[in-house]
């Protein structure tokens, strides 16, 4: 092998490489509200995982334990001496009080945090998959004819039709027909919230499709599915991730609303929505029963929105401040 005659100029030094992820992170770190939201979310994820373990495996945290002598105790009150040993809450204290059946609200909130978070994340994963698939196909194969309509027109009109349904009532109808299960709720929320993602991805693909690197990838003989999902989708992810973050908040809110209305997770199993629903009969006697789950929902939805807004600013190169 011969040495190439020409070598590149020394003008470009091998600087410390900064990946696109690092650039976004550097910018995001300056956004205090977004960072506050991110800390809340990280705390919540930790809490949800720990809570899942504690409520499943440690009997004193069992959220379903009924203690009739200790019903409607206010937060931070102590357990009465009349309880059996396996009914005494940890440290003998009800941190968040008890409900009308004497169930420990702290344990129920822990269990509910896992439900809320997993519904949010799984539902949004489903909606992202469907949205990227439909938006990607519409954007990439847009001009191709399918019968007398183009693929783009067909898929986007389907999206428009899906957008026309009043989503919440559609979810209510479907959930009323299906057996109440957390998985059905995840799927239903996911399948009714992909339209925004599909539109974002299609819009990005329409411009990406004309970019030279896509033609270059085709000139290398890469199969089309690989060009779509390995080359174009990562380039279209910035606006999708932002909207996905905010969609998680929406999904958590929807699940809470469903559980509040009694269409959600089956009652002995606690979610923030059904804790709130149980508490609404005791607003004046036991205000902690609605205040605690209500505040939790508010905080989490706010945190997801703040992180989403922060990500949008951090990923927008025009708004991004350069490192000084």
């Amino acid at each position, binding site marked *: 092998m011969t040495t190439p005659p020409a070598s590149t100029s020394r003008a470009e030094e091998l600087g410390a490489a900064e990946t*696109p992820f690092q650039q976004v992170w550097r910018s995001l770190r300056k956004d205090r509200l977004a960072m506050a939201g991110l800390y809340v979310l990280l705390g919540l994820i930790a809490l949800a995982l720990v809570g899942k373990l504690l409520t499943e495996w440690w009997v004193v945290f069992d959220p379903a334990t009924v203690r009739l002598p200790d019903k409607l105790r206010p937060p931070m009150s102590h357990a009465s001496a009349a309880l059996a040993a396996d009914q005494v809450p940890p440290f003998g204290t009800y941190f968040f009080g008890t409900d009308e059946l004497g169930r420990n609200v702290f344990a129920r909130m822990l269990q509910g945090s896992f439900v809320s978070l997993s519904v949010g994340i799984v539902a949004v994963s489903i909606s992202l998959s469907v949205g990227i698939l439909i938006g990607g196909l519409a954007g990439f194969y847009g001009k191709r004819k399918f019968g007398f309509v183009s693929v783009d027109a067909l898929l986007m009109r389907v999206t428009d039709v899906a957008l026309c349904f009043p989503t919440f009532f559609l979810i209510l109808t479907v959930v009323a027909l299906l057996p109440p299960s957390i998985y059905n709720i995840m799927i239903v929320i996911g399948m009714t919230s992909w339209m925004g993602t599909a539109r974002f991805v299609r819009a990005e693909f329409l411009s990406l499709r004309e970019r030279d690197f896509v033609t270059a990838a085709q000139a290398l003989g890469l199969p089309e599915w690989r060009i779509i999902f390995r080359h174009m989708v990562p380039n279209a992810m910035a606006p999708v991730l932002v909207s996905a973050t905010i969609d998680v908040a929406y999904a958590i809110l929807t699940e809470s609303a469903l559980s509040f209305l009694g269409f959600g997770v089956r009652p002995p199993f606690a979610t923030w929505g059904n804790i709130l629903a149980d508490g609404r009969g005791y607003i004046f006697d036991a205000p902690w029963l609605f205040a605690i789950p209500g505040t939790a929902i508010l905080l989490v939805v706010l945190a997801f929105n703040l992180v989403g807004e922060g990500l949008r600013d951090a990923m927008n190169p025009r708004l991004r401040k350069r490192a000084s």
Partner: protein
Amino acid sequence: MANGAEAAIPPLLRIRDLRVEFETDAGSVPAVRGVDLDVHAGETVALVGESGCGKSVTALAVMRLMTGRVASGSIHFEGKDLASLAEPEMRRVRGAQIGMIFQEPMTSLNPVFKIGRQIEEVLVLHQKLSGAAARTQALDLLTRVGIPSPEQRAEQYPHELSGGMKQRVLIAIAIACKPKLLIADEPTTALDVTIQAQIMALLKSLKDELNMAVLLITHDLGVVAHFAERVDVMYAGKLVEHGSVRDIFKRPAHPYTRALLGALPDPLKPAKRLEAIPGRVPSPAMLPPGCAFCARCKHAFEPCQAEQPPLLPITAPHVAACWLHDPKRATTSV
């Protein structure tokens, strides 16, 4: 095309009567109107012409990557007709047997992947290499195209590289599977003059090393003179002249080729004013019935308006599509 140079070995790439049309609201517009082109194994053929004359469309038609439609004609590559090949087989030709370099190195690499991975991808795809073997080969390719410290470079993103560097990476990707034919679509247009010379020198050395044929598409006649063996000049979707580099530069026969050469600065005669070609390339939607160049041609006479000239022999294999070279029509030799 009767260029007489056809040896017993059939050419690597043989394009016959290629017509490409674009569908518009106003009907179909011809961008390429019956082009014949041969590229033999190991040789460099330059396709020259102004912007919009159809040279890039011809190249993309070979790869079957354009939005237009091949209306008629054949593109034979090693005996296979690429115009009628099934798409999966076409994908095995692209990248593996025909490599392509594009005009814009700045935008032809995927911005979200490290460059090492982009080279490895094509190796894994066509040569079925494992990850580690592909990485070794990618580093070797980066060294070959003259990129210093390939290990670090492979870990960088395209935005961290200069234009010349990116073009080198694109060349590395194009030659990764040792293609028999490399199509270089204006490979130096977007680069600095000093980098242009480096890139062309690199292409030349790689061509000799790998014994590739190169179809060089350019409007830079200086590049053509140094690099190509044969030249095809295109104007408004048709070939107007074909010949060896020597023929084209010493004895240009078509007025358009002469005008192109006249528009080129001559370092030995610095005082001379450069001659611009008056007028513009006619729109492909409104082509005149006769020679497409006649409105801009100093030598136009009656038949030029009425009838399209065929490729007329000058001295084989040199041909030009101009009525001036028809002994029956031309009154004066030019």
